């Protein structure tokens, strides 16, 4: 098939700028913000390593639905909720350390699979509008989750640990202390090089997931997902069960997000029962987009570049805001503004790129038709 993308129609330099507009914008922003913040290089490196270890797993969970052509899976919020339910149970049962974290993963696995399956079914009914549907689904499930945790726990599901139970006797407290599992993964193997703390345990798990994604892309299911992502009709004609493949992609993403949220919260050491999952989808999607991914393509490199750039802005913006205007709060607002703005910018760029590609394709076909018509006319005259 002839490549009709922008690479064929524009100067390579312009093409590079358009394809990497978001990362370039972020790097430019950081060039100004980092010196303004006054943070030392060592501090920033330490922060970035911590945040990479904490967030990469969640961002990686977005890759599989992109392969299947479902865009950014905002439905990872559902997985995050499942992970939090697992953490609530281990806090109630007082299961601690590495077994506690693994048990939380085990408990939340069926919940995540069920939620992923539900999400997949809904997204199959909203083909072409997966992202907005996933986003709304997150809000919907958040309500169900709150109902379940606020009224179901203690009433229907027995909770014996008074430390996590609201004083009225049912419902879970707003904040749960995860001290007993805090840093278990990072502390498994922890290396300190020149004052920079590297949680090798976390990175091993992330590396394993990267290896899994690379391997998975080569499997039959991975190839099926790619085919579905490129053209659903072609996939269907080739005998691929499109709906099932799409559901599997979402289940896998939700399950990985569930584990990602557990890894994230065990690293932080505290869980905001009713809010921790709220921004998970937004921040993970924003980080991936900042890394240069788009709705239709995303790679492991995008995950790491995006996580570093996005979180670097997170770290430096409050201080930079304070130095610049004298208001640290400005930096806080700036973070949220940046997240939404990046998503909007990336989506707009993607839509624009698609439109240009369509226009180029239309022109190409028109030119081809004209040439064919011309050839036919020439043939007729000669005859």
């Amino acid at each position, binding site marked *: 098939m002839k490549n009709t993308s922008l690479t064929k129609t524009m100067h390579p330099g312009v093409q590079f700028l358009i394809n990497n507009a978001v990362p370039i914008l972020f790097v430019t922003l950081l060039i100004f913000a980092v010196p303004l913040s006054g943070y030392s290089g060592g501090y920033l490196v330490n922060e970035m390593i911590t945040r990479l270890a904490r967030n990469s797993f969640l961002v990686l969970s977005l890759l599989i639905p992109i392969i299947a052509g479902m865009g950014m899976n905002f439905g990872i919020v559902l997985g995050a909720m499942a992970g939090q339910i697992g953490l609530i149970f281990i806090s109630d049962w007082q299961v601690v350390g*590495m077994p506690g974290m693994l048990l939380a993963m085990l408990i939340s696995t069926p919940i995540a699979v069920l939620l992923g399956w539900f999400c997949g079914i809904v997204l199959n009914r909203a083909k072409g509008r997966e992202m907005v549907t996933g986003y709304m689904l997150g809000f919907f499930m958040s309500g169900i989750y709150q109902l379940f945790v606020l009224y179901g726990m203690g009433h229907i599901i027995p909770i014996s640990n008074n430390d996590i139970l609201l004083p009225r006797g049912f419902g879970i407290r707003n904040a749960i202390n995860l001290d007993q599992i805090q840093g278990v993964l990072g502390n498994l193997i922890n290396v300190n090089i020149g004052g920079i703390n590297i949680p090798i345990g976390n990175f091993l798990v992330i590396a394993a997931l990267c290896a899994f994604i690379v391997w998975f892309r080569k499997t039959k299911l991975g190839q099926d997902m790619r085919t579905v992502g490129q053209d659903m009709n072609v996939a269907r004609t080739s005998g691929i069960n499109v709906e099932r493949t799409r559901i599997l992609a979402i289940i896998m993403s939700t399950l990985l997000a569930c584990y990602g949220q557990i890894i994230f919260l065990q690293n932080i050491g505290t869980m905001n029962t009713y809010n921790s999952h709220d921004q998970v989808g937004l921040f993970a999607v924003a980080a991936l987009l900042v890394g240069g991914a788009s709705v239709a393509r995303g790679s492991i490199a995008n995950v790491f570049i995006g996580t570093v750039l996005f979180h670097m802005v997170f770290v430096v913006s409050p201080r930079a805001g304070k130095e610049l205007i004298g208001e640290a709060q400005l930096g806080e607002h700036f973070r949220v503004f940046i997240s939404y703005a990046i998503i909007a910018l990336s989506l707009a760029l993607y839509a624009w790129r698609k439109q240009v590609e369509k226009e180029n394709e239309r022109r190409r076909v028109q030119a081809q038709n004209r040439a064919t018509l011309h050839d036919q006319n020439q043939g007729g005259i000669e005859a």
Partner: protein
Amino acid sequence: MRRNLIRLALILLLIWAGLYLYGAGKMHKVLLDNKDWAQDAVAYTATTPYLVLLDGEEVGTVRVGKRKAGEVMGARHTIVLEELDEDEEPTGKKIEKSFSLKPNDAPVVNIPALVGGSETWWEMYVEEE
């Protein structure tokens, strides 16, 4: 049929893994009493303070007539008692014991009974009404 068997085996494996992790990670609160205790007509008297270590972690000094609490994770544990003199300096006398707990056990260890060689040197904690 074969596929269902594999699925069943997987579910059973996951249940077993869950139970194993629950047992291995369950946290127990261990209360350490250095108080006089009587059992089966045998009385054990608290006379000296002890430095207590649970699974190698120092819990602290339990003075005569006092209670301290420690936490342990899992099923099998060791308790080490280091006898202290009046100035709370180690006398060099050490006692080490191993014990196993079931998932819902909350033991109260009686130090004089343990030192005195009692078979039942810990009992389940019962909340006072």
